């Protein structure tokens, strides 16, 4: 155990949490509204990273401005994709959507490979490796890391505002909570699904655009990150953005402390998120919120296994 490290490790973890949260919002939104796990998430992030690269190379657009273009673009792509393809499988068994989106990932990956080759790319601007020091705490922080963290926080605030204050947002929330009731009160669930899918894809793209400035990428980019996103949204209880942010923080702290404070080998770091994913699914099917929430009514027996997540339709 190395407590001397705890401050820098914790700061690093908080910054990392911003990154984890940013990449999980899109996945969480799509899951919430449509009960679909977007297995093409990694592909979308990768595609957005390359788009950012192309915008810079071809039009000289500074990468940090890229989200302004990338997000609307992917929003439209996402909506179109939902309308043309995903809608066809609404109501099918969950595994169908999983496989379909997986196939989309394969196709995107292959397309990227054809267009940009398998070579690893990175975006290098004067600001991408700059950092600043806080002498008092003996801390060095990369500007880009801080930027991604802030983007994660700002996105959360905007999303919260959007969901609680706008009609569309409220409709999305209502659909997330109960699709059938939402229909009954006159919400156009079909249209909401399409918009939500678009926003979800746009959020994944935002993550990809931001990551392109701190991580190298190739067509295979995002595989591990996607698994971590799963862990984050499962930890976060699957349907709330605040939950996702908390999940991201918990996962990042667990990973960074395991390595930095408890001296785990770096090579094993990803094991933390993989085990978190599996254990939380089994033990806490409703994520961390179920630990924090109201004490459940006393039960003589533990919850029946089959009441584990069944797509929001318990009982």
């Amino acid at each position, binding site marked *: 155990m190395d407590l001397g490290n705890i401050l820098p490790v914790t700061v690093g973890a908080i910054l990392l949490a911003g990154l984890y949260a940013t990449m999980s919002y899109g996945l969480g939104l799509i899951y919430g509204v449509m009960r679909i796990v977007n297995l093409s998430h990694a592909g979308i992030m990768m595609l957005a990273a390359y788009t950012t690269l192309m915008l810079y190379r071809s039009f000289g657009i500074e990468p940090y401005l890229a989200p302004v273009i990338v997000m609307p673009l992917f929003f439209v792509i996402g909506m179109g994709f939902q309308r043309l393809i995903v809608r066809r499988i609404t109501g099918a068994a969950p595994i169908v959507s999983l496989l379909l989106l997986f*196939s989309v990932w394969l196709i995107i990956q292959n397309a990227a490979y054809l267009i940009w080759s398998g070579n690893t790319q990175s975006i290098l601007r004067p600001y991408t490796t700059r950092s600043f020091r806080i002498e008092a705490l003996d801390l060095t922080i990369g500007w880009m890391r801080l930027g991604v963290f802030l983007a994660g926080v700002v996105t959360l605030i905007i999303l919260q505002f959007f969901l609680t204050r706008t009609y569309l947002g409220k409709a999305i929330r209502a659909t997330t909570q109960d699709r059938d009731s939402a229909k009954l009160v006159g919400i156009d669930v079909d249209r909401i699904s399409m918009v939500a899918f678009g926003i979800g894809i746009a959020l994944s793209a935002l993550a990809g655009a931001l990551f392109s400035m701190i991580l190298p990428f190739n067509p295979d980019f995002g595989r591990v990150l996607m698994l971590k996103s799963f862990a984050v949204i499962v930890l976060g209880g699957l349907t709330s953005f605040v939950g996702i942010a908390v999940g991201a923080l918990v996962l990042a702290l667990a990973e960074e402390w395991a390595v930095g404070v408890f001296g785990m080998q770096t090579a094993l770091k990803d094991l933390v998120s*993989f085990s978190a994913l599996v254990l939380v699914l089994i033990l806490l099917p409703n994520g961390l919120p179920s630990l924090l929430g109201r004490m459940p009514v006393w039960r003589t027996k533990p919850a029946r296994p089959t009441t584990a997540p069944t797509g929001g*339709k318990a009982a």
Partner: protein
Amino acid sequence: MTVKERERQSTAAAATRRAGPGREALFAVGGAVLAAAILAIFGLTLPANSYLLFSGFLLFLFTTQSLAWNLVGGYGGQTSFGHATFYGIGAYTTALLQENAGLHPVLALLAGALGAAVFSVIWGYPLFRLRGFYFAIATIGIAEATRLVALSPLRELTGGASGFRMSTAGAGGRTSQYMTALALVLATFLTSYWVRNSKLGLGLFALNMDPEAAETLGVDTTRLKAISLALSAFIVGLTGGIYARAFLYINPNDVFAFSVSIAMVLMSVIGGVGTLIGPILGAVIYVVIQDQLGAAQITFRGQTFQFRDVQLGLYGLLLALIILFEPAGLVGLFQRVAGRFRRRGGTQAVAEQQALLRNETGDE
């Protein structure tokens, strides 16, 4: 609506299952044995250093895996992305026991398969509480975690990222490898046929279509899933061991790879998930794409495109098309086409088939 949501895609599972025993059994078993015999004779006529032996060996290995995955993923509807763990454990257990403990190859193979089956029970039981994609995603987590453990903490045993080499001394000839793999395909096919027509298969189909109804009728769904997973794991473990003995080199990043699991899913789903023949077709297509078309190339505006470059996308495309239009896979397509060529009852059969795979009729 709720009923419709409950309907599983793989009700296709039972599509080909209806006919009773008797002539069909004779035909299926007889046909399989006959095909195997032809392939065996074909193998014997090849010179010992023929690439065909090696290629056939790989095809049989893939087919076995596809059939084995289908036992739990198709019949039982439990989409596992974690079968690489069985492959890896089978390969490593066999290799280590044979190389370091000097165990007889056959015993080492069996031990590897058994190891895989035991491991399947270890992660299967807790995970079977999860439904739908929660199960699928959890299996990805399991597989990746297992790979990491094999890679790092068990480095001394597995060779870590550098892999584990076996001595060339114990390696059998290509002909014997071909025959072993062929025998394994045959055995797996017969097992698959048997399961399909047994009480176990009936229970699996039932829990696949409606787990809750199956439970009320006395089906211990967790137990059945565990049994089918263990059976599947045992077979995949065997293929792992056979692979290790043929390649004499294994690597955690290779035998525990996500792509190994993916291949099994792809082969089964593309061929026709839950059907008897589908997984075989799927494996053949998979190997053909990989081996045969891998070399094709087209030149366009002075740039040469290798077919290999679009291989992954092609699997993706096939998968997407199958899911959107023909959930019963290529087998379903074959049946549909066959149905079209028959004058009478043909259209009815097609309609029935479609109804079977798409929305269920009649329910509110």
